């Protein structure tokens, strides 16, 4: 386990070098990018000086890394405002979207996946596999646009877009999150259904399930009482790995529904060419993915002690 944490720390370090190098070493001058093509050489030089771009790249990297490690995300190149309070605010929006999205994915995928496992080979089972294929092929933003226009603007059942902070109104906050979360969840559930289905096909072929059925349990109670717990291990693992996909998916969904989250902020800052802010947000997202992967890895060994012994062999 110590080895895994060590690899994680090394991965974080390498990832931070990659992020910094990509944004600072690629051909193209940071100051020039920020100021746009029509800037005068004089103002570019002034900004270079102000951003410290004339210093050697290594001390600049070390300084940035040190600041990030102490939780200081730096400040905007355009306004000079510190990034921390903004990011804290927006991260909350993204986190609630991701968690509700995951909830929606589970609520959709669990019953459908179980049904597909039970009705394997029959018409409705095939139909569910079809839903899964379609859900993986339709881009999230197309699903989002369709929901926003039809359910939001045409039917007026839910807000078509926008956001209300939870501090202002809980009900409004919730109603503004439903369609975005449903969009994120629908796309994710298409992938999840396949894993749920195969986990429950496993369950159904086990002796304990056959015994439960033989002593008189009906099908669904047997599934819920005996199957759910046994299948949950596989499903929780997949959910953990999907969590990082959800954070990336949130970038697009936030843009569709005009939610003030971390993802839409990142896209906006790329448009504004505010590179220091982009750098810090990208690092946060990459770190999130790495942390989630580490936690999934560690939880494997915690849940299943058999995996602890041969640490070298479980890499696949």
């Amino acid at each position, binding site marked *: 386990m110590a080895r895994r944490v060590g690899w994680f720390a090394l991965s974080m370090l390498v990832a931070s070098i990659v992020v910094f190098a990509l944004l600072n070493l*690629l051909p193209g001058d940071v100051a020039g990018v920020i100021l746009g093509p029509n800037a005068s050489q004089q103002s570019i030089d002034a900004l270079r000086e102000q951003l410290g771009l004339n210093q050697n790249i290594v001390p600049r990297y070390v300084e940035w890394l040190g600041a990030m490690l102490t939780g200081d995300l730096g400040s905007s190149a355009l306004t000079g405002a510190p990034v921390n309070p903004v990011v804290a605010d927006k991260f909350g929006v993204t986190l609630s979207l991701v968690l509700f999205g995951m909830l929606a994915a589970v609520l959709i995928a669990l019953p459908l996946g179980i049904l597909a496992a039970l009705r394997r080979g029959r018409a409705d089972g095939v139909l569910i596999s079809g839903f899964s294929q379609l859900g993986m092929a339709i881009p999230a933003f197309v699903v989002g646009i369709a929901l926003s226009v039809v359910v939001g603007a045409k039917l007026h059942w839910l807000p078509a877009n926008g956001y209300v902070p939870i501090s202002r109104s809980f009900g409004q906050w919730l109603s503004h999150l439903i369609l975005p979360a449903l969009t994120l969840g629908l796309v994710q559930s298409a992938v999840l259904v396949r894993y749920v289905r195969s986990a429950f096909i496993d369950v159904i072929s086990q002796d304990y399930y056959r015994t439960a059925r033989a002593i008189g349990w009906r099908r669904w109670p047997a599934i819920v009482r005996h199957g759910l717990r046994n299948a949950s291990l596989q499903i929780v693992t997949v959910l953990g790995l999907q969590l990082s996909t959800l954070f990336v998916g949130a970038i697009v969904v936030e843009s569709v529904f005009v939610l003030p989250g971390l993802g839409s902020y990142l896209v906006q800052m790329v448009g504004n060419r505010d590179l220091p802010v982009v750098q810090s947000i990208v690092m946060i997202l990459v770190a999130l993915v790495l942390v989630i992967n580490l936690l999934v890895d560690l939880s494997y060994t915690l849940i299943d002690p058999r995996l602890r012994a041969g640490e070298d062999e479980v890499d696949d």
Partner: protein
Amino acid sequence: MRRNPALLIGAAMVALVVVFALISAVWTPYNPTEVTPGRLLPPSTAHLMGTDGFGQDIASRVLVGARSCLLVGVVAVGIGALLGVPLGVTAAVNQHSWLGTVIMRATDIVYAFPALLLAIILAAARGSGSTVTAMTAIGIASIPAFARVSRGAALQVLSQDYIIAARSAGTTPGGIAWRHVLPNITPVVLVQASVSFGLAILAEAALSYLGLGTPPTTPTWGRMIYESQPYLYTNLNLALWPGLFIAIAVLGFNLLGDGLRELVDPTLQDVR
């Protein structure tokens, strides 16, 4: 073949996209980038899918969009396979040395940079998005998948008797990788290529939708949806046509991948 509907349907859908791309190279109903006064026209015999907010013919743009969709997929999958497969095979051959470990750990780190995020970083560094940065980013992000799949398959091949025979006959590790491993893992790599193709199309569409993909002069399906946003509440069909064809292309490649997998390994039929 007869019992493999996924392969047939998938191949047919991919063929449709390829035919679109080929047709658009020689003929489109209208000039796809010509701005005309006939804005937001509904579908008619003159404009099969109507016109967009600039009066451009949607059907012509959908046809041309097939070209960019295939181009992005081919380049991205090419980058991913050409770098990922040698890395995976090298890692398998050097399984017990530091080289194998370092390669797989390095691909783990690349794995932490999803295609969309990597493309956003590159677009930010270059000041704006372009087709080349999008293709490069998506290609690099697909390297880990190719490396993992080919490493797993290569390990399986390396445990076979004929490898031991080749080794005792004096074949070098490089020779074994080239002559025995590569040909035998090709089917698995093809399956991965098909799946990655679909993912690449989705990633490029998302980038174009965010305005970070191809420049405005090139019609792509994602870009068409991005440009349809001001008119969505009155003219949803502007977004539906390109959305439909993105879905057809991705579904086609996914089904093709499933079908190929079934063809390669019939015992896997139930693991969907």
